């Protein structure tokens, strides 16, 4: 009985792995495109950062006090030009990127500062363009510059820099035991989403081809003539699809790893992509794999059922695309939503697998939760298998006309 399942599965895998076109579109292309896209994104982000860093901020300043002028001059990344134009004129110049920042000191700024009596604050105004990255950066720089200036003024008033300190505050990190240490939070949020999307994408193309395509080409009907139970035919196809999905996911991840030298800055929020912390323990790996298998089961069976209903590859694509979108949205939800999952949320299929994977990566994996998500995945997978089995026995499904 199960011998025929294996025969069908082998044939399906042979079909995929001897077809150069399928190998390229399902394994090579995703790997290469992910490597290229991620690298380009990473390079663009670091280029923008570098551009901003190497840019010399130009400031148009009115009535600059000597002390501030000196502070600006001391910073090699900023230059200022003394001007006398109005705020309105400055706005146009900022809009046209002639200057990055406009700084206006009221004419008696210094006098007011000297004579300060607790009221009547001396006025300084700044303008920047929120549309320009360098202008935004300039506003940060001016902010810190004035922080320094304020401390100077205060130190003068109080009679020494030491008076600026009010108390000593010291905060330290607690020690995290080595085994419990997860990886960078950004990566922990990103990877489950990628795994989920890669699995679905990896099974989608070949699933449509091996079921809807075989229906369309009339090759599945030939198999129905053999004594093999029809359920075994669909079972063999589903199993082979699971293998394909796992291999495809792996190849997509190789793509991610290839891109790391360039993409580390956006893959991990911090900028360091420390591979040494990637080493999950045996139990963690096991848990992670179980979560993946749960996703594979559900995705492969849903793709199979939809391909079964469809009468052509094109139609299958139309049915499967919405499911793919749901998968993507579920992944994104997990990235931006809070990870505080409790009670009923743990029984939401797909979502619970993804949350578990995230927790595992953060070093908070929990066997109980993993088992709950695996059980819900298994229930869904089995239910869809029953549906697929029912469908393949239906005349209108197998022989549409």
């Amino acid at each position, binding site marked *: 009985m199960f011998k025929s399942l294996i025969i069908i599965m082998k044939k399906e895998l042979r079909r995929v792995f001897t077809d150069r076109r399928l190998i390229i579109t399902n394994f090579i292309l995703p790997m290469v495109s992910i490597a290229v896209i991620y690298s380009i994104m990473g390079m663009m982000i670091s280029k923008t950062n570098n551009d901003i860093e190497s840019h010399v901020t130009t400031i148009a300043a009115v009535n600059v006090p000597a002390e501030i002028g000196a502070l600006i001059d001391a910073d090699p990344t900023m230059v200022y030009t003394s001007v006398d134009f109005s705020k309105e004129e400055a706005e146009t110049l900022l809009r046209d990127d002639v200057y990055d920042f406009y700084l206006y000191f009221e004419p008696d700024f210094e006098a007011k500062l000297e004579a300060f009596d607790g009221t009547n604050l001396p006025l300084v105004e700044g303008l920047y363009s929120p549309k320009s990255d360098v202008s935004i950066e300039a506003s940060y720089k001016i902010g810190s510059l004035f922080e320094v200036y304020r401390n100077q003024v205060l130190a003068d008033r109080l009679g020494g820099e030491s008076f600026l300190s009010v108390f000593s505050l010291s905060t330290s990190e607690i020690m995290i035991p080595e085994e419990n240490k997860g990886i960078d939070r950004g990566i922990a949020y990103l990877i489950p989403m990628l795994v989920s999307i890669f699995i679905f994408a990896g099974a989608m193309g070949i699933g449509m081809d091996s079921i809807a395509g075989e229906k369309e080409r*009339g090759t599945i009907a*030939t198999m*129905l*003539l053999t*004594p093999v139970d029809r359920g075994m035919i669909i079972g063999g196809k589903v199993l082979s699809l699971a293998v394909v999905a796992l291999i495809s996911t792996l190849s997509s991840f190789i793509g991610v790893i290839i891109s790391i030298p360039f993409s580390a800055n956006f893959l991990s929020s911090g900028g360091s992509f420390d591979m040494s912390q990637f080493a999950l323990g045996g139990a963690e790996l096991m848990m992670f794999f179980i979560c993946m298998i749960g996703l594979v089961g559900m995705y492969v069976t849903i793709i199979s059922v939809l391909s079964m209903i469809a009468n052509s590859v094109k139609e299958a694509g139309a049915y499967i695309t919405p499911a793919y979108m749901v998968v993507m949205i579920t992944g994104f939800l997990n990235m931006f939503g809070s990870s505080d999952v409790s009670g009923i949320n743990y029984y939401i299929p797909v979502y619970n697998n993804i949350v578990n994977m995230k927790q595992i990566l953060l070093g908070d994996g929990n066997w109980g939760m993993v088992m709950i998500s695996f059980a819900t995945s298994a229930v869904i997978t089995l239910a869809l298998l029953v549906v697929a089995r029912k469908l393949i026995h239906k005349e209108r499904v197998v022989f549409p006309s």
Partner: protein
Amino acid sequence: MIHVKGLKKSFKLSKKQMTENKSKEKQKYAVKGIDFIVNDNEIFGLLGPNGAGKTTTMRCLATLINPTEGSISVNGFDGATEGEQVRRELAFLTNELKLDTHFTPDYTARFFGRLHGLDETVIEERMNHLFDYFGVTPFRFTKINDLSTGMKQKLSIVVSLIHDPQVVIFDEPTNGLDIITARAVTEYLKILKSQGKTIIISTHMMHVAEKLCDRIAVIMDGEIKAMGTLDEIYKLTGKGNLDDAFFNLYETSGGQMHV
């Protein structure tokens, strides 16, 4: 041995099909109650115009689709309840069944042999014999995609016969074949008959039917209009060849001839 008793088959029509057929009926009876028996050591021919219900009848026999009414038995196995055994007993060929063009004849024949539960040595023997007879051997490792139409058809025949079944049901087996290849197929059917097999073929070629079939059933609009040996058909219609007999039956059953 094949028994067909009161076989009816209706198809639910989709909205599109209803407008195409210009009918308000939601169902279409493709086969409207037919009975026949085919014996071992016999070639039985199904003749009939396009859409008469020949293929539908044969698909029911092959358990690909389920009869709406009536029963089928193949070598004593019931089509409705013992589909698996029925399929073990028979070969079925029809043009809607295709082979995956990505594989080679060698792999395809092995794959179907395995699905029939045959041992590798048995598969090898059957394959060598059939490939040699039908001239597939030189193309054994050529992708099916690269084979000619005739070679593909011959391979389909080989694959359908890989498990050496007792019952052979071929729907228009010589369709699209040149006369030499067609002759090879009909000769092989004669060999199968001499081995005592039960054979049903459908064809639009009257000369093939005349030469090959022991008995013939003429099906029109889902019903058998005449059945018997060639001589019995000639006697019934008062004609001396199958062509004329066929036209005669068509006209007397209310069919309109447009010349």
